[in-house]
Each structure stands twice: as C-alpha cells, then as structure tokens.
C-alpha cells in the first residue's frame, strides 16, 4: 500500500440554491484517501454523504447545486477544474460509482452484457466482440453465469442486479470506487453475499473505495477508515478502531447508543433527542449542540474546529478539546 494520496478533498462547500432559500448541503469538508484503502462515510439522511461523492464524480445537477468552493484532487489533478470532456474520460475508467438502488440504475432495454460492454468500448480500444467477451468475464467474476449476459435486467433478482452494477463499475479496472449504500436495498442474506464479493474484489484489485452507509455493522466489516457526517460536516474521523473503541464525538456515541445490540440485553434504547437540523437554517455554533446532551454555552456560540485527540483521530467538538473525551 503506497502512502501517496489518491484522492484529496479540500474545503469543499456545496450549496443547493432555490428561489427562496439556500441549502447548505456540504460545508468546508476535508477528506483524503490513499491507494487501496476503504473509507466509510456514515451519517443519516441529509447529512451530505451522497452530495459529497457526487461532487467527486461531477454528477451533481447544476443548477440547483453549486460547488461554492474547494478542490477535489485526484492523483494531484483538480477534478473541479477539468472540462467535461476530460471528466468523461475519468468517469467509469479511473473512478466508478455503484448506486444505491440496483432496480433503477440499469437500463431496462439493453441486455446486461451490452451495458457492461458499453463502458468497456467507451474507454478501451477494442472490437465489439472483445468487449462482449470481457463483459461476460466480468459477469463471471461477480458470480453470474456468462450465458446470462444476454438477459435483460428485469430477469434478474435484486442481488443479481447489484452484482451486474458492480461488474459494470469494475469493468475498466478503476483505481477508485464509490459505493453509495450498495446493499441497502437488499435482504440480509443477499447483502452478506454482496459484501463478501466486494471484500474479495477489493483485495484482488487493490481498489480504493469510499463506502457510503448508515449501517455501522457494515462499517465494522469492510472499512479501514471512517468519517462520520452530520449536517454537511465531518464531525469525527479516524481508523475503524478509533471510531468503535474510542468514540469521541457525542453524535457518534449517540449513533451507537440507538442501535439495538443483538448480543446484549437492554431494556431501552437511548435515542438522540430532536431532529437533524433544517439545512437551510443551520444552528449557530456547533451544528449538533441543540441535540447534544453535553452542550455548553460555548457550543452555542462557537463553531468547533477539528481536534486531534490521538494521532489520526479527529473530533470536531469543544468538549474533546477541553480535557479528553472521558466526560463526553
């Protein structure tokens, strides 16, 4: 694993502008990823996870979306400055994306092999026949019999469709893969199959990956690093061990407390009070303070900066700064 950064997001701010309000979807976000690493991007609905990765792919609908500031460096090259024509060469070849819902991300009027071959033909110089052959190989790789390549998406089950989407994303051997809730639409036993497959392929091809999920169980299983997002910001970042064993931010702690644990007996869950804030009208100071049980006066006034509580483990919380995280 080389220590060189493959992806670096610097001060990314994305707004959605509508007639009467501005949605602050992502605010001042910094993130980096090295070759072969997997980062879990965790947060609830509206936290800005999908907006962040869509900015990397440059597939945000602009307008209403607007990338206000920031840089997205991929291999040292700023993706936000690239002309669309150049970007097209990168999408699908260098960076691929797996979308959440396999039922709607495939073209219903093309056979699955044609769809996979389309990506290959777009990026590699080869004949139709060769592309088709490679598409069938990809299907085999994800555990689908190659002769099923001539079937249409509706002839596949949900888990199989997601495998097709994965095959398509990996067809050109990308260096960086974005998976946006790849298993949320699937049943648990099928989810287990798909996760196993992704782990295997990741190890085989050394692909760097950003995995968006709201399931901390999946994070524990597949991610090396974790970033917890809340209301457009990363509130905690660290290795998997940091996040699970030395949880720093009150929001992360809250997330853990409200998942029912399958191994222990507990009588009542401890929910996080209140709701995620309205992204057009975010609270002043720390964005989590209205819901935080430990909030102080300072939290209501001052926006907390990132604080490194141990090497490589960052927490954006005033309390973490003032005397460790024991009292949090």
């Amino acid at each position: 694993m080389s220590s060189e950064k493959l992806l670096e997001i610097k001060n990314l701010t994305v707004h959605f502008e509508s007639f009467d309000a501005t949605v602050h979807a992502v605010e001042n976000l910094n993130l980096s990823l090295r070759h072969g690493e997997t980062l879990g991007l965790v947060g609830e609905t509206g936290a800005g996870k999908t907006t962040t990765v869509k900015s990397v792919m440059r597939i945000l609908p602009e307008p209403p979306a607007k990338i206000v500031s920031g840089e997205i460096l991929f291999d040292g090259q700023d993706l936000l400055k690239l002309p669309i024509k150049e970007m097209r060469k990168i999408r699908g070849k260098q960076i691929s994306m797996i979308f959440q819902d396999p039922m709607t991300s495939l073209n219903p009027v093309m056979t699955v092999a044609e769809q996979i071959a389309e990506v290959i033909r777009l990026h590699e110089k080869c004949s139709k026949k060769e592309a088709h052959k490679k598409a069938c190989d990809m299907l085999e790789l994800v555990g689908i019999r190659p002769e099923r390549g001539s079937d249409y998406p509706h002839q596949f089950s949900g888990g199989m469709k997601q495998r097709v989407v994965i095959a398509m994303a990996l067809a050109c051997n990308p260096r960086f893969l974005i998976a946006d809730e790849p298993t949320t639409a699937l049943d648990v036993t099928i989810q287990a199959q798909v996760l196993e497959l992704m782990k295997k392929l990741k190890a085989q091809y050394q692909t760097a990956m950003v995995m968006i999920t709201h399931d901390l169980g999946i994070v524990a299983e597949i991610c090396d690093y974790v970033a917890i997002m809340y209301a457009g910001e990363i509130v905690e970042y660290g290795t998997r061990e940091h996040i699970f064993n030395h949880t720093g931010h009150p929001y992360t702690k809250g997330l853990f407390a409200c998942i029912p644990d399958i191994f222990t007996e507990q009588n009542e869950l401890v929910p996080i009070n209140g709701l995620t804030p309205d992204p057009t009208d975010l609270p002043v100071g720390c964005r989590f303070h209205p819901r935080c049980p430990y909030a102080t006066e300072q939290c209501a006034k001052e926006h907390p900066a990132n604080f490194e509580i141990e090497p490589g483990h960052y927490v954006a919380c005033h309390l973490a700064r003032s005397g460790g995280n024991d009292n949090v």
Partner: protein
Amino acid sequence: MSETLLEVKHLKKYFNTKAGLLHAVDDVSFSIAKGETLGLVGESGCGKSTIGRAILRLHEPTSGEVLLDGTDVTKLNKQELRELRRKMQIVFQDPYSSLDGRKSVFESIGEPLIIQKICKTKEEYEKRVHTLMETVGLAERLVNAYPHELDGGRRQRVGIARALALNPSFLVLDEPVSALDVSIQAQVLNLMQKLQKDMGLTYLFISHNLSVVKHISDRIAVMYLGRMVELSDCKALFANPMHPYTKALLSAVPIPRLDVRKERILLEGDVPSPVNPAPGCRFAGRCASCMEICRKEQPELREVEPGHFAACHLIEQ
C-alpha cells in the same frame, strides 16, 4: 400473560398470477398472548406482511382461521368486521405513502373516530384527538400541519396515533421503523414499548431487521417463502437457532462491533419463486445440509424443546 388474544390456525393465502398459483402464506399457525409481542422476521417475499394483512382481512385469507378473543375474523360479514376493527389496527411501513396528503394531522387522526361514530360531541372529538397527539408525542402546534410538512418520524407518530384512536387491544406493526433513520428509529421503538406498557397492547411486529425485532419481541417467528420455519422465545432463538435458515440469517447480520467476529454462513443463490413451489422443504435448494427426504417431504413445525418450534428434517432425526 398466558391468556391467548390472537390465534391463527392453518392460515393460507394464495394469489392467482399469470405464472400460476403464488403461495404467499402456506399453512401458518401461531398464537399471541395478551400483552405479548410476537416478532415476525424474514426476507422480502416470505409472506410476513401478507400474514399481517390477512389477520385484519385487508387480504381475504384463502383458508384458515384467525381467532381474536375467540371470534373468528374470517367468518365475519362486513358490518361485524367493521366493529371488530376497533379491536385490531395496523401501522404501515411507509409513513410517506400511508397518510392522505390532503388531510391534516387532525383529520387523519380523527378519521377513525368519525367512521366508528365514537364521539358524541365535537368537543369530545377534539379532545380525543389532542389526547392522542400527546400520547404519541406530537406537538400541539402540528395539529393543522399536512403530511408533507412533517419528517418521517413524525409521520409515523401520526400513523401510530391513528391506529390507537379506537383503543385497540391488538396492533399489527408492519415494518414501522424501516423507513426511518437510526436516531429516529430508536425514538419510535421506545414510544411503542411505552405504549404497550401503559395500554396493555399486544403486538405483531413485522420486520426484516433482526436486531430491531430482538429488541422489541418476547417471541420470534422466522418465515421463509410462505412457511414458518422456526418459532421460539426471543432469547432461545438467538442462543440456540435450530433451523439452518435461521442460522444463516443470524450470521448474515453485520454487527457494529469490532470485538465480535463470527463464522458467517453464506447462502448460495436467491430465494426461489413462491409460484408453484416444488414439493418438499422450501429451503432445500439453498440448504447446506439438504438430504434426500428434504426434496420430497415438507417438514412440519415441531416442538423440539419446550416453547421452541422448528420445521426441519435434520432435527427430527
């Protein structure tokens, strides 16, 4: 706790499709005691929602009996059924599509009261709706809000208030928290536990999320392709799963902890089609320990240990 409130006997629900007869629910029997929560788990298409709906006769059962407090629900005429619906209600999965977009919170919650002609005066009616809103933790100011103004958690609270409006004794909860974020999910789960304690409710809790089901249920029934494969006390099911499908299902749940790693049983392939299922055990095609008899004979649900039922030929030996 020992008095039985609901008893389902040999419930079947088949759907006629172009491809053939779809066995959505095939000969399922169980009972729920007063004040108990029975969790019903299984993957998509296993028939868990169909059972919930057939109990309320939102789907007409093909055959079988559903006894609520001794009354056979399946034999009632329209009038009698309407009266019985006061005793049993349902909360649906998707709070986004189960509320009428043109009705305010007040109207939505009050609708069952009007249909059943419960309240004599307008004041009584208004008071009842306000009490219900308070019971489920909806702020007074939302009384005239419309569904689109509410977030998922609040919508689900409206759905729960509606179901509680007639003071039912039995509630079918059909994936009530699946559409919600985890922090909101915990709020709604706590609310439902509190309501059960305060009002002595009996729940049939349908969900595909095993950790949620474990949290809220007293007993758990596992479904696979229209059949009940295991039924047991909650603790015993997790400590000692007997059916191979239950074992695989439990091992497939991703655990949000780093200190526990377990052997994962990976199932091959997909759930087969419930249209004209082959004879024998429904799970035979994906079962690692499938025997000859499994392809021929359908295993019956049998009491293996006191209170712990499983339907598998392996166990019978």
